[in-house]
């Protein structure tokens, strides 16, 4: 039985379709990433899974429980890190965990037992009695992650868990999430950071306009959609641009302002050419998930 199973899920807001016939299947113990531009339907999908909004059509089951019919029961086994911070500003760090635990009907004795361990996990033991407004962005995110574990959930739903964090804080969250995956928890996360998805996720689905447009492991997605080498020609690209039409240098070129992205299987001929043009600054790197994402969803802004 999969941890999460979604068939033909559709949700409309007025005339705009947020989720359009989505299918997903997430195995137990898997870390699954939902990627997509703004407005692709990621957050709507998560809210549908939690049963806080109701789909227009389609089926959802979580650990075999039908949603929304059994959503309340199902949520007892889920931990959520929302995109917008909603810690309780009227309380201290510890009070936040106590009050949230009570919403799950967890008794005080169990909470007294669990909370110190969760604070240690989030490296917040020294802040246990601090008010929320004295915490940094990274600390708040860690506390939100600790809060999501108060009911010892089997499934974690994380909506952009590291957005707005500095690199140190982000790495710390990643390390904690890996830790949770090792403990056997199932994780479903959305993110805009391709590096995050590549590092953490066993499988990824890319959404656009409410539909799944690609799915696979990070490595497979890159192999399937993108040539293995990328050369980014960062400046002074005018002199070289006409030459790139020739397939001997690269198979595919994309432009973003002055920068040219050249995709190819063997980079040597282009590198030799670039060696004769010292005024050009370029970067040679392996293809990554961001290349896949851009190829599939386009370069235009999505606001």
């Amino acid at each position: 039985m999969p941890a999460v199973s979604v068939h033909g899920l559709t949700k409309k807001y007025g005339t705009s379709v947020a989720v359009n016939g989505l299918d997903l299947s997430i195995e137990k113990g898997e870390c699954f990433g939902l990627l997509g531009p703004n407005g692709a339907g990621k957050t709507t999908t998560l809210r549908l899974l939690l049963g806080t909004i109701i789909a227009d059509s389609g089926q959802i089951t979580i650990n075999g429980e039908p949603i929304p019919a059994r959503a309340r029961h199902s949520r007892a086994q889920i931990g959520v890190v929302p995109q917008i911070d909603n810690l309780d500003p009227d309380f201290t760090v510890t009070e936040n965990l106590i009050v949230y635990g009570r919403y799950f009907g967890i008794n005080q004795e169990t909470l007294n037992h669990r909370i110190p361990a969760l604070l240690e996990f989030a490296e917040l033991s020294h802040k246990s009695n601090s008010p929320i407004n004295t915490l940094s962005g990274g600390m708040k995110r860690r506390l939100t992650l600790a809060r999501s574990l108060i009911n010892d959930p089997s499934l974690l739903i994380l909506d952009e868990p590291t957005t707005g964090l500095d690199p140190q804080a982000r790495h710390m969250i990643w390390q904690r999430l890996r830790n949770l995956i090792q403990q056997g928890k199932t994780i479903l996360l959305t993110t805009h950071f391709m590096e995050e998805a590549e590092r953490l996720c066993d499988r990824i689905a890319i959404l656009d306009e409410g539909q799944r447009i690609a799915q696979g492991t990070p490595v497979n997605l890159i192999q399937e959609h993108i040539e293995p080498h990328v050369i980014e020609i960062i400046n002074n690209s005018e002199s070289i641009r006409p030459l790139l039409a020739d397939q001997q240098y690269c198979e595919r070129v994309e432009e973003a302002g002055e920068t040219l992205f050249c995709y190819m299987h063997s980079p040597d001929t282009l590198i030799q050419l670039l060696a004769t043009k010292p005024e050009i600054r370029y970067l040679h790197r392996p293809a990554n998930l961001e290349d896949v994402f851009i190829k599939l969803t386009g370069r235009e802004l999505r606001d």
Partner: protein
Amino acid sequence: MRLPRPSLRFIPIWRRNLLVWRKLAIPSMLGNLADPMFYMLALGFGLGRLLPEIGGMPYIAFLAAGTMCYATMNTATFESLYSAFSRMQIQRTWDAILNTPLTLDDIIIGEFAWSITKSGLSGLAILCAILILGIAHGPNLLWLIPLSLLIGMCFTGMALIITALAPNYDFFMYYFSLAITPMTLLCGVFFPTNQLPLLLQHISVLLPLTHAIDLARPLVAGHNPHHLIVHVTVLVLYGLTGLCLAINLIERRLQR
């Protein structure tokens, strides 16, 4: 339109609000006590000297009953407008709760119960003020506590509808200008409603604060209220209708 689905799961939400209140309990209770005391002292003694007895009551006792209803109405109204709106829209507390096994009905009923509790505390503070100032005495005064819960219920239900519809805090000014202020002036807080022109008297009868005051005033005077069932029914109906409408409206609002 559906009916509320009550359950005891509202208790953790009520306890959350209690825990917040406990941090500010002393200033909150002092406010509950001081505000009506100043009203009763200033108007009761100041204006009261110039006035004859009203219906066999000294003006300060007449005013004390009105003040008790008015202050309790305000407590319920502020809690269910500003505080509830903050938790719904600004702090996103309700969003956090909806990700747990609790439901929207649990949240709204929790808020409803909490606002009624706060109204009861407000009523208790005014009862203390009445006793401290020696305005009235007798066992009938104890009925002011359940009455303050009833008034809290009525005005919590009404205010939650406004919260459900509010795009921002400024919206609440409509409710104050069009509902709370007229009630304060037309329902007999400061003078008997039979002094009003007939048309305004007819309007006054439809407003819930009038019914609250018709219960409070005899209790302060040491009598038993007339038409007890009518007055109680009006207050309960306003409160429960408000609760029911608010749940439906907020459910629709959060689905967006």
